[in-house]
Each structure stands twice: as structure tokens, then as C-alpha cells.
């Protein structure tokens, strides 16, 4: 049974990807990024932190493909190592807000009433702040540490998951199969967690994929304004921030490469979203 299941899932995934090359490219990109992050320590040609002032600010060359920065550090190596940090922050933050937001949202959507109202108003309050400013305030208050960036990013993503899960569960809570699950001996909580949540997951996956891109931008943004990871830790946002000082003197490579890395990561996750929905929804299978 389970092997039949798996093979049919694979076949369906292959079908969706064949009909949708953009998703395939995005998926490949995301996979590549993940591999890059995982194997970063073995891939870097130079030590990303060691400075060599004699080789500072060199344009891209055979030795340094992406050039070197003001301290003579290899941009390519820093870029690769940075992917690790940026992805970790984004993935953890999104995972936290998804886990918390979808459960809370699903419970609200199912139960309605007072719980729903209370949580709903809390979400409204959260949304009333400009989210990036809220994240800045949190990091400033809690301190410039990676955990705090993750927490801040997770909190500002939370409202979307709560609202999304709430709406998706709400439209399904009165369907026959939900009541049927109750008649089959499931408790309310089991119905929400084991029946409704898996059914709203495909829609949530799209949201998660889009959010991953956004979370990367957010983390980089925080670092860019000096509220995130501190130098000399390699991070895309810091690299862009530091490189920006040299852009007027024609050292474009300091900004261009981390910027491109950011852009392609965000693009990959956004494009992946749509394809994911088609893959995860059993109703799309033929």
C-alpha cells in the first residue's frame, strides 16, 4: 500500500513538473541552494573570514571568481557560507510560524466564538504595525543575535498563517467528512489536527514557499541596517551593506553578487509555491 502510494506520488510529481518547467527550474534552484548551504564548508575555495589586505578590492578573476572585498576576503566563499546562515534563519523562522500559526489558526477556525475573536484581534493588532519596523524593534529590544532574528521573523509571519489556516478550516468545518470523522470516534482536537490540518496543508505550502523568500529578504534587510547578524559573519545583507560603500568607485562586484544571490533565492521560493500546490493536492491527480 505505502509503496504504491509513494510511487504514485512520484509519478504525479513528475507529471506536474513536466507540464510546468518553471516549477521544475525553481525546484532545482531551491534544491541547489539547499545543497550549497549544507556543503558550504567543503565548497569554499578560501577562508571566508581571513582577510588579506594585499589582495583587497580585486575585480573578479580566475583566482577570485567573484572578486575580493575591502579586506581582501573572497566574495564567492563568503557568498557560499552566507547561504547557510540566511537559509537557516528563513527556514527556522518559517517553520516556527507555520507550526504555531497553522495550529492556532485551525483551532480558531474550527471552534469559532470567543477564542476566535481573541486571537483575531491579537492578529489585527500585530498587523497594524509595519511588519519590518516591528521586527526591527524586536531585534533591537532582544539583542542582535541569530535566535532573535529568527523569533522576530517568525512573529511577523505569524498573522498570515493564523489567518490562512483559520479561513481554510472555517470553510471546511461543516463538510460531511468532518462530521463523519466525529461519528467515527474522533475528538474535536483530533479532527482539527489529524483531518482538517492535512487538508489545508497544500494551500499552506504555497504560503510557506512564498514566505521563505520573504523571510530571507527580511533577515538580509535586518542585517543591512545593522540590526541583524554582526560583521564579520558572512551574510548576504551585510555583504550588500558593506559593498554599497564602494559602489560609487566602480566596485560593483561587492554588491552585485550577494544581491543576485538574494534575488535568485527569493525568486526560486516564490516560483516553487505554485508548483507545490499542484503536487500536494490529491485532487489534482488523475
Amino acid at each position, binding site marked *: *500500500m505505502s509503496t*504504491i502510494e509513494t510511487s504514485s506520488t512520484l509519478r504525479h510529481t513528475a507529471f506536474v513538473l513536466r507540464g510546468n518547467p518553471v516549477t521544475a527550474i525553481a525546484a532545482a534552484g531551491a534544491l541547489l541552494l539547499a545543497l550549497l548551504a549544507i556543503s558550504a564548508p567543503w565548497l569554499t575555495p578560501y577562508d571566508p573570514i581571513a582577510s588579506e589586505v594585499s589582495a583587497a578590492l580585486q575585480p573578479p578573476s580566475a583566482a577570485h571568481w567573484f572578486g575580493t572585498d575591502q579586506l581582501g576576503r573572497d566574495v564567492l566563499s563568503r557568498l557560499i557560507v552566507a547561504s547557510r546562515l540566511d537559509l537557516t534563519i528563513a527556514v527556522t523562522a518559517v517553520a516556527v510560524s507555520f507550526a504555531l500559526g497553522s495550529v492556532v489558526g485551525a483551532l480558531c477556525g474550527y471552534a469559532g*466564538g470567543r477564542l476566535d475573536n481573541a486571537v483575531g484581534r491579537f492578529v489585527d493588532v500585530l498587523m497594524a504595525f509595519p511588519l519590518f519596523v516591528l521586527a526591527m524593534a524586536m531585534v533591537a529590544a532582544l539583542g542582535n543575535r541569530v535566535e532573535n532574528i529568527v523569533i522576530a521573523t517568525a512573529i511577523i509571519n505569524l498573522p498570515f498563517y493564523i489567518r490562512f489556516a483559520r479561513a481554510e478550516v472555517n470553510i471546511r468545518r461543516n*463538510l*460531511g*467528512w468532518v*462530521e*463523519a*470523522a*466525529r*461519528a*467515527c*470516534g*474522533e*475528538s*474535536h482536537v483530533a479532527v482539527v489536527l489529524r*483531518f482538517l490540518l*492535512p*487538508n489545508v496543508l497544500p494551500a499552506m505550502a504555497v504560503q510557506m514557499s512564498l514566505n521563505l523568500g520573504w523571510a530571507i529578504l527580511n533577515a538580509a534587510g535586518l542585517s543591512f541596517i545593522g540590526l541583524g547578524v554582526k560583521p564579520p559573519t558572512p551574510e548576504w545583507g551585510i555583504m550588500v551593506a558593506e559593498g554599497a560603500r564602494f559602489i560609487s568607485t566602480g566596485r560593483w562586484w561587492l554588491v552585485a553578487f550577494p544581491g543576485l544571490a538574494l534575488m535568485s533565492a527569493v525568486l526560486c521560493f516564490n516560483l516553487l509555491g505554485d508548483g507545490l500546490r499542484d503536487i500536494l493536492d*490529491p*485532487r489534482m*491527480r*488523475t
Partner: protein
Amino acid sequence: MIGSESTQPLLEVENLKVTFSTRRGLVEAVRGVSLSLQPGEMLGLVGESGSGKSVTGFAITHLLDRAGHITEGLIRFKGQDITRAGGADLRSLHGAAMAMIFQNPRAALNPIRTVGQQIADAILAHRRLSRAEAQAEALSLLKAVQIRDPERRMGAYPHELSGGMCQRVMIAVAISCNPSLLIADEPTTGLDVTTQKVVMDLLARIAADRGMATILITHDLGLAARYCARVVVMEQGRLVEEAEPLTLFHRPQHPYTRRLVAASPTATSRIEDLVPDGERIPLVAVTELPPPHGTPLLLDVKAVSKRFDDGTVGVADFSMTMRGGESVGLVGESGSGKSTTSRMICRLIDASAGEILFDGQSIGQIPARDFHRSELRRDIQIVFQDPNDSLNPRYTAFDCIAHPLLRLMNMRSGDKLRQRVEECADRVGLPRELLSRFPHQLSGGQKARVGIARAIACKPRLLVLDEPTAALDVSVQAVVLQLLNKLRREDNLAFLFVSHDLNVVRMMCDRTIVLRTGVIVEQGESRALFANPQTDYTRELVDAVPHIAPAPA
């Protein structure tokens, strides 16, 4: 064709073929349909889902969606070929010459414009009038469709009106420019029988008064027979029979029509007659059901009420008793509280007051949220209304049927479970190879069978059936009803059969309870109750059911 026509037909359709391009290639939805319509005539276009009846209607009005194309044939309207009409021709055709009424009036009306504005919009789209004149015209149309207090209703939004009222507004929009052809696609499906009667009577009268020809597209043979002079039966994109209603019912020629006529429940039909001999499910050799008297009460509902959080009363002071193996019908219109009652008995929701005894034990005291842990959970099971949404989309048919066994019978995955699920599938006539399929890969009838198999898997003693066939085609309904009847006899199951279809309840139930706005209006032995209703409300319900007079002896 009846009589000798010298006049030119209003509409002629010749050998119409419509093809849809889909993910799996081209699908022919209409495969050569020819019909003609005289001015002022009402034609019934009858068929089950997938028969192509709606597509034919859409093709005539040029409202096919982008995937659909007329590949062959000719549509002539007032002698003019409109098969490939487009642009300006089409605009003048729509509304002014032909208009359409849709199945779900609420969805067909714009929710953010008042009904008065919407009728005026339709008028202004085709006639040169000032806004004020159009408004005045809209008001007179609302009067024509007999909306009470039309001045006030002009400013009402669709959500403030009932389904029947919305459909009247739709009719007002449709007739606003005096079209000569009206196509009504299932205009009363989803409305209560009494509302259906009022709306159809109104439609028929307006069409007659204004000399409009009407095509009534419906799945309900009885409805078509009641209002149409001529009925056309479609099956799988083909026209299989065309006749006057009486001829059609009493001497159907085509095998499909014969099946359809047999499957349509009438005031006198029996369960056994619904399906032709060949496909009939053989009844188990139980000569007679054990007499329900004398056996102890299985269910004893005492003065149960339901008041919702917002203060509305769903059910008031409802009492009933049932014995093992007995079948009781619960009928009423939407809002009568029949679903609420069935869910209270099924312990899915709590009653506000009253007592429910099952087999002598008080189950009303156990909160619905804890009832899943009760020993009696497996004894009371339910079959839901719409098979399309009563199965978890992420569960295969096997998982669906295994679910109660795992939860309520403490079975573990393995050969024993598989064997038991297959047994259940066999009992409901679901081929075993379909067990690995997901709900969206099953037909409506197959989904209904899975739902029934799930409900009987734990061998319950009371089965609550909440409109189990309301969403099914009549021929599928016939088979499902027979199946239910068989299962009931085999297991000596008690049925609480909730339905709005009086003919079905009469066949399926020993006793019937009539509910109206949460209160029992009348109850008694089914046959007597429908043959000789004691209250006006029941009589009104019985009269509203479109039926065909029994064949002359």
C-alpha cells in the same frame, strides 16, 4: 412533434455537436441533438448528470465556456442561423431575444448590487430608457413575479432574500426585455418543494401570458411532466426519446427512458420497482420484518430542544420513539430543524434541553464532545447528504471504511482489517479494486456506497440517513435506496431517514414525522399519512411534489 404546424418554429436545432477540450483530450458532450420549438411552447429537456442537457442549453444561448465548441450542426432562431453568431449579433440576442435562468439564483445575482439595480441594468443593456424609467420598469417586473412589498425589495441585496425570492428576481431579470425564448436550467433544484411549486407555477404563467417559449432543463421527470407539453430525454449527449409526458411515462419506448421512468419515485412506486428486473438487488429471504411492537425501545427522545447561541430556536420540544429495526422518516423543508434533530440524536451536537435514551441508557447527558469515547458511538452511525463532501479528500475509499473500524472496534491494520473492509465493500456493492481510489476518482454513486459502507462497518443498530440520495441522479438513487433497504433487512437496522423527498420517505419508512420550524406538525404510519394528510401543511407538501398520474388500468 404534436399537431400540424404551419407556423415557422421559433428555434430549430439540427444535429448539434459540442466538444470540450480537456486535459485528457477532446470530450464530446453533445453528440447530434436535433430539436425544434414553437413560439410559446414549453419543452422539457430531461436527463441525468452528464447527459449534455445543460450544455445543449448553453450552446443555444452561446454561453459555452471557452473549452467548449460547437463542432457541427445548426441553430436557427426565428429562421436566422445563429450557430456562429458573434459580437453585436450576440449582444442583441442575449437578453432581448433569449434569456437564461440558472440553477443557483444566489450565485447568478451580483451580491453587491440591489435587486432593483440589477433588473434595471438588464433593461438598460437593451433598451434606450432613462435610469428612472428603468427603475419604474424594474418595479413593475418585481410585481409581475409576485414579490411581496416590491417597493421595499427594490433596495434589497440578494443575501437578504430567500432562495425562492432570488429565483423570482432572476426570472424578473430574464423577462425584463421580453425575450421570445427562455431557457431555465434546473430553475428550482435546491429549492423546497412548496417553493418549487410556487416558482414553477409563476414561470409557467408568465411564459404563457407573454407568449414566451421555454426550455425547461431538469433532472426531474415529474417536474417536466407537470409543466411541459413535450419532453425530450437525453442520455450521454444523445436525444433518446421525445414524447408527450403521459406517453413517456406510461409507454416509454427507449430502454433508458424506461429505466429513468422506473427510477423516478412516484406516489405509488415501491422500492422493488425502482430498478428493472435485470439489475435488481435480490432481497434477502426475510419474509416480513419482525413486528416492531413488543420489542424494547431502541431510541426514546423526550422533549428535546435546541436553542442556538444566537438565540434562534432550531428544534422545540421534539419527542419520538423507535424500536429496533424500525424505519422512521423525518420530513420537512429547509429550516424545519430536521438536520439539527438528526445530529442531536446522532450525538454530534448537544441538545439544549430534553433527554435522549438509547437502548435504555441516557445518551443525551453525555456531551457531544465526549461522545466519541462512548461505547454507544459505534451503535449510532450516520450517512451524510452529499457524497461529494462526505469523504475525506486525502483518504482512499479503503481508509474511509477502515476509519471507524480502527477507532471504534480497536482493530489494527493488517489482513483482518483488510478482510473486514472488503466485506463491507462487497455488502454495498463497491468493487474491491476501487478501494485504493481517492474520492475524486469515484463517481457520485460510488462515493455514496463508500459513505454507506463506512456507516455500517461497525454494525450499528441505528443508522441516521441525512438526505442520503439528495445529490444523486434518480437512477443511482434507485440503486442506493434498494441497497439501503437490503442492508436494513439483513442487519435489522433501525433507520432515521431524513429527507425532503416525500415519495422516497413513503417507500423507505414505516412511520413518518413531519417537522416545520422545529415543531412536529404531524406523525403517523407513512402510507396513511401521505394518502390522507391531517394538517394543511402536510397536505401542501404532498400536493407540491410533482408527480405523474398512475397509468390508466
